[in-house]
């Protein structure tokens, strides 16, 4: 059995799990954990989108 993810979906799945671990391990309260997890997730996904547009601009 194999799994094939597109570039973007692979980045999204990566962001979900990494953000979960970062949120839980880097903050003390539940509220802070959720906020930091969402912050990390938005940075991961935002970084992917920005990098994608930069590569598009370089290509054109």
């Amino acid at each position, binding site marked *: 059995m194999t799994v094939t993810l597109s*570039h973007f979906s*692979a980045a999204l799945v*990566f962001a979900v799990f*990494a953000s979960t671990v970062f949120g839980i391990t880097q903050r003390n309260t539940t509220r802070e954990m959720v906020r930091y997890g969402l912050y990390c997730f938005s940075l991961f996904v935002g970084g992917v989108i920005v990098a994608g547009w930069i590569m598009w601009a370089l290509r054109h």
Partner: protein
Amino acid sequence: MTATSQAETPAYPAVSQAMAVTALILGWLIPGAGHFLLKRWGRGALLAVSVFAMFILGVLMQGKVYAFNTGDILDILGFVGDIGAGAFYIVTRAMDWGQGAIQIAAADYGTKYIIVAGLLNVICAVDAYSIAQGKKP
């Protein structure tokens, strides 16, 4: 002297040093187990699912699991990352999974998933150790 004493005073309830080391080692061997040992069930479950899912997805994406090596620096670092997954790494190597399919682009993502799963698991184990020492609630 006073500052040192204050720094050594745990901010939250702590357990014995032996329990803290056990949580660290158990947390490394089995993702989330260090938190389970300290009765942080919810956090442990989320961490276990996250590390397990990343590692399994990496293997299913035909990522490479690095064996011990003394060759290229990136291969050595790959091994260091992979070994962080503890029992998952041992089982995967024993079953001879994770050979890596270099002709598939997604397999390279799989390799990174496996390495990051190991590195995240190390963070989880250290977090369990911090909780046991009373540095975290």
